[in-house]
């Protein structure tokens, strides 16, 4: 049988530094929100953050807050309040948990940083590259705070990306400048903007290097570790703090490889996670898989925050390219090829597809991909039903059984 023991994740020496980066981020926003000294832009997680940094805004990411609501398991309590306001239980549960929490005047920032409320925005900036929900989400706050809502409308389901498409997105980004200046941003400064793009690129390169250390056998870390350590790649990209953090993390990961330190002692199975994390169940899933000697070595989700296309020599165009070439924007053929390339690099022997009830754009099992990948690579897949934040859509027992049975299946294949 699949030998199952509960094993906790190994802690990282740089965890303290991670906490500091995140605390600095939120406390700076809180101070600005209270004093009005700096302008605050809310930005979708793969929105045009570098431009905002380049215009002197402090940047707050509601999706990061959504993930915190999920991880702290506050989401289930507050989602119903957004549902009652007409926001369906079937749409993005980041949206419903974030708006529900706001309506209830609750935030996980209170417990984590003694911050009473999310920072007040001066402008809300989205990119629909992930989904339309970010725009609808921000629109609610735009109405509530009576502040401008601006953004980029991207292409969807694209295979090859043409130059004209990149040019058009670049133009949309550039066209944001007058609105952002009017919303209180500093006058656009090309040098400052280029600097932010350059720092984002460095952050991305380091983040990729960190993720790719998991190609080592045994892997020095797991997807569950990475979901925690990716926070600066989201909130501190375009800053020196992001670069500094990943230099430290990369050093530690390399040290683990050199020292033969495995994330999972006796690593027996290597898995790929496709889809959103189940934030409220990270620990439970991590411990179950560790107990089964299974290491989730890579994920599409964590790879999302790699934007190596960024180039400070052509900032608008390279931003357009980086934010349009994302996995989530692409067609099925591209996505399939992408996962196959990840298989070549990480040598995983199974894929877990998370079918997230409220996140269709990030649930890639729905158009036959698991079956096609199995045909092309021979790698079996497991589909688990759940959600990023709404644990009403999650059956713990059924998921546990499915995972255990999947590992049994992999073990049978090893006999």
């Amino acid at each position, binding site marked *: *049988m699949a030998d*199952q023991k509960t094993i906790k994740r190994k802690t990282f020496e740089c965890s303290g530094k991670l906490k500091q980066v995140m605390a600095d981020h939120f406390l700076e926003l809180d101070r600005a929100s209270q004093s009005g000294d700096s302008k605050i832009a809310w930005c979708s997680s793969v929105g045009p953050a570098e431009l905002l940094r380049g215009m002197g805004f402090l940047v707050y990411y509601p999706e990061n807050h959504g993930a915190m609501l999920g991880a702290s398991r506050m989401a289930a309590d507050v989602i119903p309040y957004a549902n009652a306001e007409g926001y369906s239980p079937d749409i993005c549960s980041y949206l419903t948990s974030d708006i529900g929490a706001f309506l209830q005047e609750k935030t996980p920032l209170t417990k984590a940083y003694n911050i009473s409320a999310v920072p007040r925005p001066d402008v809300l900036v989205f990119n629909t590259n992930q989904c339309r929900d970010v725009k609808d989400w921000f629109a609610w706050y735009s109405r509530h705070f009576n502040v401008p809502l601006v953004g980029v409308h991207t292409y969807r389901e694209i295979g090859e990306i043409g130059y004209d498409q990149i040019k058009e997105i670049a133009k949309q980004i550039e066209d944001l400048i007058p609105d952002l200046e009017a919303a209180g941003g500093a006058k656009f400064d090309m040098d400052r903007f280029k600097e932010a793009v350059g720092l984002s690129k460095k952050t991305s390169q380091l983040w990729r290097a960190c993720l790719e250390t998991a190609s080592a056998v045994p892997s020095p870390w797991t997807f569950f570790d990475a979901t925690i350590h990716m926070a600066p790649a989201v909130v501190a990209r375009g800053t020196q703090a992001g670069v500094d953090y990943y230099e430290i993390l990369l050093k530690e990961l390399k040290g683990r490889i050199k020292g033969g330190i495995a994330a999972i002692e006796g690593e027996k199975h290597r898995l790929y996670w496709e889809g959103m994390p189940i934030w409220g169940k990270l620990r439970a899933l991590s411990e179950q898989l560790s107990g089964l000697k299974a290491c989730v070595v890579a994920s599409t989700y964590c790879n999302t925050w790699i934007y190596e296309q960024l180039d400070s020599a052509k900032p608008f165009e390279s931003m357009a390219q980086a934010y349009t070439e994302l996995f989530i924007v692409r067609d099925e053929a591209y996505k399939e090829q992408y996962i196959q390339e990840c298989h070549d690099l990480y040598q995983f022997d199974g894929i877990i597809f998370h079918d997230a009830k409220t996140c269709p754009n990030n649930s890639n099992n729905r158009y036959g991909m698991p079956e096609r990948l*199995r045909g092309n690579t021979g790698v*079996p897949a497991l*589909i688990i*039903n759940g959600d990023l934040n709404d644990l009403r*859509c999650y*059956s713990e*027992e*059924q998921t546990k*059984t*499915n995972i*255990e*049975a*999947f590992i*049994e*299946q992999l073990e*049978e*294949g090893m*006999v």
Partner: protein
Amino acid sequence: MASPIFTGVDIGASRTKVTILDPQKNLIGRAEKKSGTDFSDTAVSCLESALKMANRSRTDIVKTVSTGYGRNNVTFSDRTKTEIGCHAKGCYFHFPKAITVIDIGGQDNKVIKLDEKGNRISFKMNRKCAAGTGAFLEEMSMRLDIPLEDMDSLARKATEQVELGSYCTVFSATEVLEKIRQGKKVPDIVKGLYLSVIKRLLEMDALGDTVVMSGGVVAYNPYLVKMVEERIGREVLVPDFPQYSGAFGAALFAMEGGI
């Protein structure tokens, strides 16, 4: 001295089943009862009944493997296996070739594909909802106010096809009320319920050439198997005592540990 015996315990969402095998893999004892609210007690109670049937005692047991939702609640178990693994094992024992196993349980359905060596190629469980499971039929029997055990004979008397379209058990119940209002006969509605279960099963996965069905619903509703055969146009294999397939597989795993 009595020969050693091997025990499989399957604590399902609805019922608990215990099997006892002799070293020749003969099923010499079995028992089942409602899982109830104390899985440990139910397992012990079933074990005692099965031992009585086999005319053996607990000291003859070499190894026990438990499975099902309550697999971790069996105090006398040596190890656990998932119900997916155990149903596959149990069915492959009876039909040792490449098979697709369809198990209809009290609370979930499984479609498991095995290669000719009995290794799992893939498996799928129903999504969270109860549609297509034993729980669905239980709910409907209550709505129709007919005993669960009468459904099979009623379905066989159907003369007209009644279609129920919904995925959802609650919506299906509303549809059933609608059919009653329309004056549809109870046997036709019951057959419509079976058809609904079959549709939920067939949309889970593509079936291989040889299909095996197991589980309590199959044991007590054999007409449903006949309807599946009609639907897919080929014979469906059913092991003896299909409700015991998981417990039987668990006992086979117990035996693999050695005597």
